């Protein structure tokens, strides 16, 4: 895909990327999840409280695609958690600055968590603060900061948001 020529093209491209991203996570295709990111990406889950105060701690904090691959490997092979899945509802993205091949975008999301025994809850709400890199043809996240509206996490956060 070419670098978007205008905001309309950028919005369309980022919306498609977010739709693919949500479908990947929600269908448990986590092995493909790191491919949505650049090699030297930043992926961080934080809270609006920390984000607004520039407090840098993350619930997950990765500064390479390889760390995301490790996260998936750990979820598959090491970590123990009740079988669960997500349903992401992602808003239409707001397009911010465009610099060369980078497009900044924000989108709101809701994530419902469904446990294997059938119960489900609204697990997380927040926004994605993204930098999308179009340089390599296929758009990928150079940075994805997941800013949770609440800082309370119920029980555990295994599957990425």
């Amino acid at each position, binding site marked *: 895909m070419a670098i978007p020529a205008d905001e309309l093209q950028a919005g369309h491209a980022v919306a498609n990327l977010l739709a693919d991203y949500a479908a990947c996570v929600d269908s448990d295709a986590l092995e493909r999840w790191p491919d949505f990111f650049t090699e030297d990406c930043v992926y961080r*889950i*934080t*809270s609006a*409280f*920390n984000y607004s105060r520039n*407090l*840098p*701690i*993350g*619930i*997950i*904090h*990765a*500064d*390479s695609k*390889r*760390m995301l*691959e*490790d*996260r998936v*490997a*750990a979820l598959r*092979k*090491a*970590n*123990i*958690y*009740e079988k669960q899945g997500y349903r992401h509802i992602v808003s239409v993205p707001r397009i911010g600055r465009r610099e060369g091949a980078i497009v900044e975008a924000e989108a709101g999301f809701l994530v419902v968590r469904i446990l294997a025994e059938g119960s489900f809850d609204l697990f997380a709400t927040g926004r994605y603060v993204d930098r999308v890199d179009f340089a390599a043809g296929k758009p990928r996240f150079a940075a994805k900061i997941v800013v949770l509206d609440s*800082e*309370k*996490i*119920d*029980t*555990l*956060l*295994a599957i990425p948001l």
Partner: protein
Amino acid sequence: MSSSANARGLAIWPEAGLTRVPYALYSDPAIYGRERERLFMGPTWNYLALECEIPKPGDFKSTFVGDVPVIVVRDADGRINAFENRCVHRGALLCLERFGNARALTCVYHAWSYDLKGQLKGVAFQNGVKGAGGMPPEFRRDEHRLRPLKVESFAGLVFGSFDPATAPLADYLGPEIAARVRRVLPRPVKVLGYYTQVLRNNWKLYIENVKDSYHASILHLFFTTFRINRLSQSGGIIVDESGGHHVSYSMVGKQGGDGEYAAAALRADSDQFGLKDPTFLSGRDEFADDITLQILTVFPTLVLQQINNCLAVRQILPKGLDRAEIVWTYYGFEDDDAALVAMRLKQANMVGPAGYISMEDGAVGAFVQRALPGAGDDRSIVMMGGTGAESQPTRATETSIRGFWKAYRGLMDV
């Protein structure tokens, strides 16, 4: 050891002493109420804040002791005071914000206001309106104040106690625990961020989990798979004289044999795999003592964590019989260089609700809680490492869990 009935006569502590823990302690409402009265509002020191969270006069933080809302504030003299967060007039919460700065604390309901020492200073319409209404002459503002807590700081940690008779904080901690607290708080602290983990279990199940070094390499497979820590590393458990506080630590460079693992054929040893990006494991020996892990508890509900360079305060808050919260405060030091901050942030991936080596802790207490309905007067078995609650040079023990119950029983009379 003699048996004694609790408030409702349900959880009678067995003759087997500390090695048998009645499950009713996690499900009996009478126990929960007694904990508030005898532990949290009794002669214990409870973590309130880091001094650096309220650096300036007027800075306040709202928090909890047990489930009791509390305000901690720095007054004009620079002293830190703490009160129950409850207006004396009609009992509304005074502080609704988590952090803030104020010259006085004013209740939104009827605008009764207090100075930063907790003294009632203002009563709206005290003399009525146009000569009518108002408070009777016998009402005196100076007879009313917010219920105070005794406050002491140690190594930058602020503690409060509702009971004026609580022993001085340094005596409460004792020299061994105090030294280990100072070890991870040697310099001015800088907060790196917060989050809260909601647990669907009684608060004591999490405290037991923290004190349980036995489970660490068994439940948390990441830990052992990547050889970050093993029971066979050298280390041990320190339990203070009261039993209530503990330190669990392990050290690198003095590896023991791995034979006991092979013999036990634990899941933890199966399925080796490598990390693609192991950079977060290359920490710094910042305290220059080869100790890579120190988990410390102060009775009843404070946890201080050092896992490599990932430092955090965990404040455990009961939120009802079957609900609790862990308030995580991650910190470094004011003089940290950028590389050390980056390492702390990366290593934070190991802990918390999404932690490689701890996410299971968020769920395992709920696995116990969900299994309680049929437990009746049954008891858990806490015999690893013997029957006492003394310090031990091994982490394959439950001595510090027994220590918790020793201190708990002393105050709770169960």
